[in-house]
């Protein structure tokens, strides 16, 4: 909190904004009354919030290490941590298969959705055409609409296409559902790219596809990475669709499998907890590595729309 003289530029700006000349140091006293107190309160609040956020996760972790067959104890480090619960969940608890199924779904959904939304966002963001607003509004519906509103007919449509109990049956609707966000996201990215860049390439005779691939995509890499990460997390965590469409255990995804086991295997609470932690690992690892991107992606995605 050292008091430093602000550079001249902001001081002038401030003066005009306030319509009277204000001494550059005038903003400091605002905090004097409370600096130490509020700082302490802020750290206390942040720490308590963090503990509350982590408590359920630490609890389920401690449950996952209890001996098989025990009922739920609260938060307590087990006398003899049963790491073998994880092995059991992975092998006999079928979580390895569930993880594999989820991975297959995400491996198709993420690249396909990214590709089609980059193309659509490019059109919306850099081209002017008749009906662009109407078409854009059409995609907007996908952001507000609850999935519950389409899942019933979707089930019958997919059944008539023979896509029940087939991974493709969840992939296709997921791609469609996530399209809305990506169109928004890429559109706002492309709108923020300098117009001159596109103009210059156009004057050089580049086709629109060429401009996209050689001029814009290299710039778009961070935006696309964020989008792909968010898509992976959503696809990995998707529940209702998988629950409805993938009923046989061989094709079920991780959250759907866990969701069903919770009702059925009440005798194996430690094993289920271990499974729950296993299926959280991919998204958590991704989050630890890319947390800045993920947070700013979710926030910007929300605000920019």
């Amino acid at each position: 909190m050292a008091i430093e003289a602000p550079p001249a530029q902001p001081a002038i700006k401030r003066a005009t904004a306030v319509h009277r000349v204000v001494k550059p140091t005038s903003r400091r006293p605002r905090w004097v009354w409370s600096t130490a107190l509020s700082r302490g309160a802020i750290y206390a609040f942040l720490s308590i919030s963090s503990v509350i956020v982590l408590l359920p996760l630490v609890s389920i972790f401690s449950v996952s290490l209890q001996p098989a067959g025990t009922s739920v104890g609260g938060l307590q480090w087990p006398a003899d941590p049963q790491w073998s619960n994880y092995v059991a969940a992975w092998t006999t608890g079928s979580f390895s298969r569930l993880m594999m199924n989820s991975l297959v779904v995400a491996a198709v959904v993420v690249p396909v959705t990214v590709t089609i939304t980059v193309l659509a966002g490019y059109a919306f963001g850099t081209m002017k055409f008749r009906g662009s607003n109407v078409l854009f509004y059409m995609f907007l519906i996908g952001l507000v609409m609850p999935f519950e509103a389409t899942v019933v007919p979707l089930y019958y449509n997919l059944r008539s296409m023979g896509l029940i109990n087939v991974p493709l049956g969840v992939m296709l609707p997921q791609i469609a559902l996530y399209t809305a966000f990506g169109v928004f996201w890429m559109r706002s990215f492309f709108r923020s790219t300098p117009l001159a860049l596109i103009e210059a390439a156009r004057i050089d005779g580049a086709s629109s596809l060429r401009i996209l691939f050689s001029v814009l995509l290299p710039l778009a890499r961070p935006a696309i990475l964020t989008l792909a990460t968010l898509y992976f997390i959503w696809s990995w965590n998707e529940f209702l669709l998988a629950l409805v469409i993938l009923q046989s255990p061989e094709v079920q995804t991780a959250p759907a499998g866990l969701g069903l086991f919770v009702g059925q295997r009440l005798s194996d609470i430690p094993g289920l907890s271990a499974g729950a932690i296993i299926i959280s690992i991919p998204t958590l690892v991704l989050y630890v590595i890319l947390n800045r991107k993920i947070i700013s992606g979710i926030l910007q995605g929300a605000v920019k729309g």
Partner: protein
Amino acid sequence: MTIMKGVGSQPRNRTGRSGHATRRQRAARAAIPYLYLVPAATFFIIFVLVPLGQTLYLSFYDWNGISAGTWVGVDNFVRAFQDPDTIAALSHSLVFIITFCVIPVILGVTFAAVLSKQQVRGLAFFRTVIFVPQVISSVVIGVAWRWMYQDTGTVNQVLGFFGIPSTTPWLGDFTWALPAIGLVGTWVMTGLCMVLFLSGVGRIDGDLYDAAKVDGAGPFREFFNVTLPGLRPELIVATTITIIAALRTFDLVFVTTQGGPGKSTIVPGTEIYRTAFREGDIGYASTLAVILAVVIFALVRGVNYVLREEKA
């Protein structure tokens, strides 16, 4: 988290570049934007718009999913508004709006206001931690909280630690199950709101605070005249996201209570699922889905309208 609000303004004008193109070249060029939209639009129309239309269509039918359906007009809607279960489900959603939306937004705004221009060391770390619920599967969250709320679970343990001995199995209690699930929503949404408002408050022009200071505003006037208006965009976004999340809750209830005990925690999502996939009453399930969608659209519009009109 797929939700955003509002629409941006018109795309910026990027025409006027083709001065020397012939008419045919121009026509070909005019088709280009649509070609880029074809893949995304195809998926979106087939798997979102068409089913949405079908839901609306089916909501006027009595159909069990097997035999031919019968047109029943608005009977399903009349039935829905007289059905105590539907009314219960919708009123539970109202409770969730308080715990998913109102509490997290108030906590988030307050927090951001207190923090406003302060430099807090380690903020990035705290931000990362409190945002974690956003990336965890709601099923895992449901399982974790299901254990938390058991009679021997962590919640009672913590209460005991603070001198309130309790052996209530919260999710099995007719009175407490609904608020207990609702508070999980608070747990999920508060971090999002805090981080959202924090990024918003950093964007407010410091000059405004100085101006308020010069005008002799105290912390409260400063909050209501500078911070709160400055956070309007975030306020709209946070309210929209959390209201939608509150109304479309399904995973959490499915995993924790399945609507029980009795019907004390049924929500529209679980009612649609049960009516369609357990009872095979497709027409009525579609009607419930239409009502849910309409309520969500109306609330989102309402929130945007109210928060926009209050321009200071």
